[in-house]
């Protein structure tokens, strides 16, 4: 969690001075990178399983833990930098700001991804391995096929964002390609320092390197309306997501093996 909260603090200055973005845009993109991509996590799990080093199932907890802190820090950065209002420039007289914040906190902590992940883990923990047997063909057997279809769909969506990247400029595209390996290395080093296993280090590195494009866009759209969503979604979905799936994940698995000696 601390790691995921630190990522926006590291990426924000780079986005401000290196990529030369306005404060709300930089904070929003920093939040996207601080949060995680569940699909990238699922691909990493698949790659590890195929390599004969399946990751521990409880690592899904990491996804749930690492989804929210980055978003919260990104929102705080936007507030500190520009005094951005919680929701919009002119809050309704009938609705106090505390309710806006409460709504946002609810959005972040009880987003679909977090509820499904934590709920799934709890159900699995309560019912035990015997209960899994009858439903295993659906969730294990079909998983790879469904993931393949989902990736195909995401590929189409990501491809459709590419023309928008012209607006983003070369510097932001470069950020989308360079940030993942650097953040992945950070995750791998921290994972190694914590004495994690090789698959766990690879998963932590993947999560650090990945950028959210489902939870973070919704949350940032509500919290920082001034930020241009085209930039943040373009770079996280159009650049970083395909980079991680094609190049990043094998790289992070390699890092994990190399660190573990």
């Amino acid at each position: 969690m601390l790691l995921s909260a630190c990522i926006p603090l590291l990426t924000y200055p780079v986005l401000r001075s290196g990529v030369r973005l306005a404060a709300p845009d930089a904070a929003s993109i920093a939040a996207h990178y601080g949060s995680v991509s569940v699909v990238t996590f699922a691909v990493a799990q698949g790659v590890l399983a195929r390599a004969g080093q399946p990751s521990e199932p409880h690592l899904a907890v990491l996804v749930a833990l690492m989804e929210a802190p980055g978003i919260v820090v990104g929102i705080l950065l936007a507030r500190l930098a520009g005094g951005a209002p919680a929701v919009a420039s002119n809050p309704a007289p009938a609705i106090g700001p505390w309710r806006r914040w409460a709504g946002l906190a609810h959005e972040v902590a009880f987003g679909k991804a977090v509820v499904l992940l934590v709920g799934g883990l709890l159900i699995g923990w309560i019912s035990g391995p015997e209960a899994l047997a009858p439903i295993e063909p659906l969730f294990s057997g079909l998983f790879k096929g469904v993931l393949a279809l989902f990736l195909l769909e995401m590929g189409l969506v990501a491809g459709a964002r590419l023309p928008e990247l012209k607006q983003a400029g070369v510097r932001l595209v470069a950020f989308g390609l360079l940030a993942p390996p650097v953040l992945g290395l950070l995750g791998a080093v921290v994972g190694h320092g914590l004495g994690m296993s090789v698959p766990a280090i690879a998963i932590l590195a993947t999560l650090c390197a990945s950028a959210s494009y489902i939870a973070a866009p919704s949350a940032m759209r509500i919290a920082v309306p001034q930020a241009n969503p085209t930039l943040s979604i373009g770079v996280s979905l159009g650049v970083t997501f395909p980079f991680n799936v094609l190049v990043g994940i094998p790289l992070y698995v390699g890092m994990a093996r190399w660190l573990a000696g």
Partner: protein
Amino acid sequence: MERHPRKLLTIITEAAIERALVADCRAMGAQGYTVLDVRGGGAMGDREGAWEGDRSIELQVVCADDVAQRVAEHVLGTYAPHYAVALYLSDVQVFRARKY
């Protein structure tokens, strides 16, 4: 049957602000609302609804003229500067005046 004049306020905007918008409408006196999932494009680009962050909604509220005016002013002042917003008003007639 007796008919009563009311306003239909239609707000087409980003799905991200649906919850806040519905709460605002309620707080300002709207008694009910209808939300449709829609797709479209405008000054802020095309919104294809291909995934969560790209979804758009059409919020319809049938209400009294003063409520429609209040909600429209609030939406234009609060959300329109930063969100994709299309907003228009039409005259409708309802049968059950108390409901709207």
